């Protein structure tokens, strides 16, 4: 029933993380989410830089996982977020949740991602052929996080 949180420049292996999540013999459900750097709607994305607030980031992520554990019965939870310069198609973020029941595994993974998007101090800067731009926060992300408060 461990929690693993990593903020790192290096890439991660979903295969390795899944192996670890699937090891817990009481957990029949493993849900993983991976977020990847994709082409912009308008095209022309060359790369992305992810800045974060060292110290606060780890604390917020640990708090998100603790909150999820308060809501659902969970086994292993793994949360990885990359920082630094990322290229098109690179992996950015990974959430893996093992749980006895699938509903808990799915909901906890969604909950962690929804709150990560609005609470964890990461900022994306996109490097395009037209220059570099800081990504604006999305209202839909705020709405997704707020929705959990009505549960």
């Amino acid at each position, binding site marked *: 029933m461990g929690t693993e949180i990593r903020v790192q420049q290096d890439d991660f292996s979903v295969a390795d993380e899944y192996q670890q999540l699937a090891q817990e013999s009481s957990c029949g459900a493993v849900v993983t989410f991976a977020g990847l750097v994709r082409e912009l709607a308008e095209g022309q994305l060359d790369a992305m830089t992810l800045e974060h*607030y060292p110290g606060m980031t780890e604390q917020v992520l640990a708090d998100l996982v603790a909150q999820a554990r308060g809501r659902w019965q969970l086994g292993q939870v793994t949360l990885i977020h990359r920082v630094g310069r990322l290229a098109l198609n690179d992996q950015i973020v990974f959430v893996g949740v093992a749980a006895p029941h699938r509903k808990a595994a799915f909901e906890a993974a969604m909950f962690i991602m929804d709150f990560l998007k*609005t609470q964890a101090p990461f900022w994306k800067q996109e490097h395009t052929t037209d220059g570099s731009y*800081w990504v604006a*926060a999305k209202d839909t992300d705020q709405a997704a996080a707020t929705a959990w408060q009505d549960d």
Partner: protein
Amino acid sequence: MVKVKFFAALRERLQCAELDIDSQPSDSVAEIRHRLLQQHPSWRRELLDNDVLCAKNFTFVDLQAAVNPGDELAFFPPVTGG
């Protein structure tokens, strides 16, 4: 003395990542911000932007939060990770 950090677009626009500023035991975040603006009047528009978030010692706080010497304050734009 409190340490103040800025991140992302705010750091770039203020051209400042980190500074130290005098503080009193009874200061609030609003008072620290006021003192920052006295020292750097050109930061007014950026730092008073309603979207700017504040954290004290790695936890989100509002403008009324008490700030003590030795605390670390950070101001930054809405987060966009994940």
